[in-house]
Each structure stands twice: as structure tokens, then as C-alpha cells.
């Protein structure tokens, strides 16, 4: 029973354009949501997070949007760059007072085309 779902296994985007990665979740108790990025043969690295009380968080080229009523979040990357080619994992957690376990999705492989 997956609580965090990434339904697109892969996505190809032209360099310079906007990349939009989507994620759905089922557990309304999640307190925060995260995006991690993973290159081959490396561990995932933290990218950006958003609290459940917000609907948008921006960090440079990366913006995460949260729609709680739809239980949906998305990661926007603009403009997309070749180094953005990686697997992106959506994740969620609960327990704002401590680092409880974080639930990850299956990932979406992003290809940035030249």
C-alpha cells in the first residue's frame, strides 16, 4: 500500500524549458513533504521541502507546490539544465518535533534533452 505515489516513471524535457514532476499521497497526516534527487551510483540528496501548512516553497530554480485538498504536490524546475538529469524522489513524513521515518515514492527519471 503505497502512501506516496509517483505515477510517471520518466520524463523528458528540453534544456531551458520547465520540468514538472508530480506526486500524489494518500495519508492526510503527513506534516511535511520533500524532494530528493539521485544520480546513478550515488545516494539520494535532499533538494527542497515544504511544510503541510504552506502551499509553495521556492529555492532558486526549484519550486515545490502543495495542494492539500487534492493530496498532490509538484516540483517545478525552471529553467531545466543538463545537470538536472537524475531520478527525483518525492517523500513525506510526519512528526514535526523529531525526525520520524520518511516515506519515499518510486521516483521519476528526468532526462534533460540538449
Amino acid at each position: 500500500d503505497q502512501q506516496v505515489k509517483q505515477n510517471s516513471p520518466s520524463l523528458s524535457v528540453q534544456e531551458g524549458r520547465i520540468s514538472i514532476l508530480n506526486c500524489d499521497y494518500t495519508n492526510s497526516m503527513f506534516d511535511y513533504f520533500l524532494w530528493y534527487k539521485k544520480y546513478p551510483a550515488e545516494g539520494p540528496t535532499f533538494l527542497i521541502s515544504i511544510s503541510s501548512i504552506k502551499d509553495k516553497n521556492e529555492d532558486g530554480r526549484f519550486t515545490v507546490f502543495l495542494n492539500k485538498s487534492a493530496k498532490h504536490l509538484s516540483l517545478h524546475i525552471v529553467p531545466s539544465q543538463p545537470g538536472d538529469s537524475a531520478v527525483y524522489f518525492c517523500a513525506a513524513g510526519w512528526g514535526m518535533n523529531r525526525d520520524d521515518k520518511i516515506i519515499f515514492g518510486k521516483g521519476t527519471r528526468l532526462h534533460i534533452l540538449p
Partner: protein
Amino acid sequence: EAGVTQFPSHSVIEKGQTVTLRCDPISGHDNLYWYRRVMGKEIKFLLHFVKESKQDESGMPNNRFLAERTGGTYSTLKVQPAELEDSGVYFCASSSGLFIGELFFGEGSRLTVL
């Protein structure tokens, strides 16, 4: 500052054998996590240590898996006896707990059970 290190990077064993994976977290990080990813699937939570105590081991598949973190520093994950379905990449992550959801992952230990 050294990141999270894992050993071995790759282990190939036969069904029924034993394997021990080791993780050295970032110095000073009280939180240590083990995750596993099977090809194409989600990064699945296994367990969470706070210092030397098991905070949450709800993700451990069965009693063939044993995790320890003696002294609250490095951790080991032993699989005994290994089965074919145990194959995958085992990730260790650590966090200070200061920034909610920000885990630092190691490069992973790939386990192949033949």
C-alpha cells in the same frame, strides 16, 4: 567533513549465506536510518535509530534481518540467512534532526543474492 559511508559497496552471496552491511553516519548525527531499494521500486524504510536505541523498526521485513548500533556511532545490518528477495540496494542515512526531513544518504550497499 566526511559524509555517510557504507561498506561494502557491492556484495554477491549465495542464498543461505550471511552478509553484514556497515554504515558510518556523519559524526554527531543521532538519527540513523536504513532503507532498501529494489530495482524500480520505492526507497523503502527499514528502521530508525536514535543514538543506540531503535526508534522504529516497523519496516524490517522479518527476523532474518538484524540491525545494531552499539555506542550510538556506526551501525550494522545483518541478513542471515539471505534469500533471493533480499537483493537490492541498502541505503543508510543520518540526520542531526535540526532540519526536518533532511537526511544525508550514503552511496548504498548493493546486495545480490544468487
